[in-house]
């Protein structure tokens, strides 16, 4: 009995190894993805956001403000303009992301202690750029605004120390945990590479049943008398082992070479990954069991695997989605896995939470394998 299982597993490994296209996709797809994404996010944070200043006042006060803005940490002054229209044109052309417009009479208003309005324009067409630009502008304008306030109070006869205390009555200090430098690479690289891995695995699993049933050799299997349960269990075991063998070099590269954060233990993270590998395999097997042919099965796989990453709440919080989508997302193992990456790789949220996530994925697995078994038995 064991011999049969091992022989079927051996043949499965052999098939995947002999199929050059599938082998390359499975072995190289996620690794190339990791290398590519690591290169893309190597800057880690967005610096040198191109900025322009429109100084309509042209006073020493406005020049001083422009000077301060030009020294902001994440902004890079690329143009000093004379009109609002010029700024508009540069933003349209994508040469400038942030525009600071200093109005006429700026120096006069500051000198008279009136509220002076400075306009910060941000190109919102690229959300990543816009969010970073907004944070960079906020940092610099907050500092300049406080300095201007302190100067105004001093001009009215308030002691410098008192004026400073008045503006810093509450000291808000920011302290990002788990990713102190708010490093994009930490957040995105592993998840994106694992997304490629899960897509490849789902597609491979989608051929589990139809890859046999759609072939003439299915006649030999049926006539041999081997139980379908034993046959597909052995085959599935081999595929899941292959999925895990593929993710190992990915983890070695990510955690060992690129030093992406892994705060829980590697065996625990591998166990978590194994639960996910089994879950996506069960989904692929289910799709494969009702597909009419391999092309259909691949289509089902694509429909499941491609949007699942977006639905998982990794790139946009699950809580911000409509309630019905949140419910739908929780049916997908991808949601539990990609949410779990944050909890376990970043935060080491503990075995209690991890076991909850693993159980959720195993419940999905049980449903999918169960449904697939019924469909296969009815064939």
């Amino acid at each position, binding site marked *: *009995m064991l*011999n*049969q299982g091992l*022989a*079927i597993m051996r*043949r499965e490994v052999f*098939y995947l190894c*002999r199929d050059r296209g599938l082998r390359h996709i499975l072995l190289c797809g996620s690794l190339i993805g990791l290398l590519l994404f690591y290169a893309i996010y190597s800057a880690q944070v967005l610096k040198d956001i191109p900025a322009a200043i429109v100084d309509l006042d042209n006073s020493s006060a406005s020049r001083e403000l422009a000077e301060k803005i030009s020294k902001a940490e994440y902004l890079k002054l690329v143009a000093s303009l004379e009109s609002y229209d010029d700024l508009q044109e540069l933003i349209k052309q994508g040469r400038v992301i942030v525009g600071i417009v200093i109005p006429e009479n700026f120096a006069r208003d500051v000198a008279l202690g009136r509220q002076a309005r400075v306009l910060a324009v941000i190109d919102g067409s690229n959300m990543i750029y816009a969010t970073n630009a907004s944070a960079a502008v906020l940092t610099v304008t907050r500092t300049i605004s406080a300095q201007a306030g302190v100067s105004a109070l001093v001009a009215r006869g308030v002691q410098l120390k008192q004026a400073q205390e008045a503006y810093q009555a509450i000291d808000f200090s920011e302290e990002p945990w788990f990713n102190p430098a708010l490093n994009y690479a930490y957040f995105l690289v592993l998840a994106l590479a694992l997304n490629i891995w899960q897509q490849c695995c789902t597609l491979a699993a989608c051929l589990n049943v139809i890859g046999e049933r759609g*072939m*003439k*050799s*299915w*006649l*030999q*299997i*049926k*006539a*041999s*008398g*081997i*139980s379908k349960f034993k046959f597909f269990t052995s085959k599935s075991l081999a595929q899941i082992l292959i999925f895990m063998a593929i993710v190992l070099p990915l983890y070695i590269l990510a955690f060992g070479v690129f030093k992406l954060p892994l705060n829980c233990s590697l065996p625990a993270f591998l166990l978590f990954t194994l639960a996910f590998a089994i879950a996506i395999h069960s989904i692929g097997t289910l799709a494969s069991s009702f597909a009419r042919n391999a092309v259909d099965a691949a289509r089902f796989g694509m429909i499941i695997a491609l949007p699942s990453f977006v639905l998982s709440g990794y790139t946009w919080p699950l809580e911000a989605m409509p309630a019905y989508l949140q419910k739908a997302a929780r049916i997908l193992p991808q949601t539990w896995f990609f949410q779990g990456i944050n909890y376990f790789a970043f935060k080491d949220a503990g075995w209690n939470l991890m076991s909850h996530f693993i159980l959720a994925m195993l419940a999905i697995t049980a449903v999918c394998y169960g449904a697939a078994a019924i469909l296969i038995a009815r064939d």
Partner: protein
Amino acid sequence: MDTIVAVKDLTQKIGKKTVLDGLVLEVGTGECLGIFGMKGSGKTALLHILAGIDRFTSGKVLVAGLDIRRTEGFKKYIGLVTQERSLFQDLSVAENLDFIAVLKNAGRDNIGPLIRRLELGEVLNQPAGTLEAGLYQRLALACALLNSPRLLLADELIGAIDLESRRIILRELKSFLAGGGTCVWAFSNAEFLPHVDRVGWLEKGKISFYQPAGALARWSGLIQSLAGQGGDSDA
């Protein structure tokens, strides 16, 4: 003579078409029953039912005394050569023999003798998908015999293949029957009628039984009546 195959009122409908219509047949142990019929007459459908590959609409089928609707246990007693190329195309000849032996839970003892008798030694490393028709059929027969079956189901065992392969296959079939094996052999070439003990002539879903000489006589009559319209000797 014991009965190894007993079929009663077997009906097979595919869509609206009745492929087999209330078939009744018995095959005795050691017998070679030829199922003769034209293309689409239901030969393959009958053999696939006997092999437990396809379900059937109604009737009762016993193989080796076992009701094939209730158990798959009968499959250990059968060997099947399909009309289509159903071996594992990507596996080599040796790998096919090895893998199918494992699937049948048959052990590997028969592999060596079958390679020798069916003269497959020179193509062991060749993928099954690349074999010429004659070699492929020799391999298919070897795979079917791996579990030393009591019943061999052979669908178009000998088609358009080279004479040497034909000689080897007929020799092996004779040896199998001499060893007490039973064969149900479906074919559409009247040339093979003399090689069987009894002929089941399948036509429009019904079966009629003949001795080989009687089947040949009926075939000759058909050929003569069609001579003016230009027939050939194949069904």
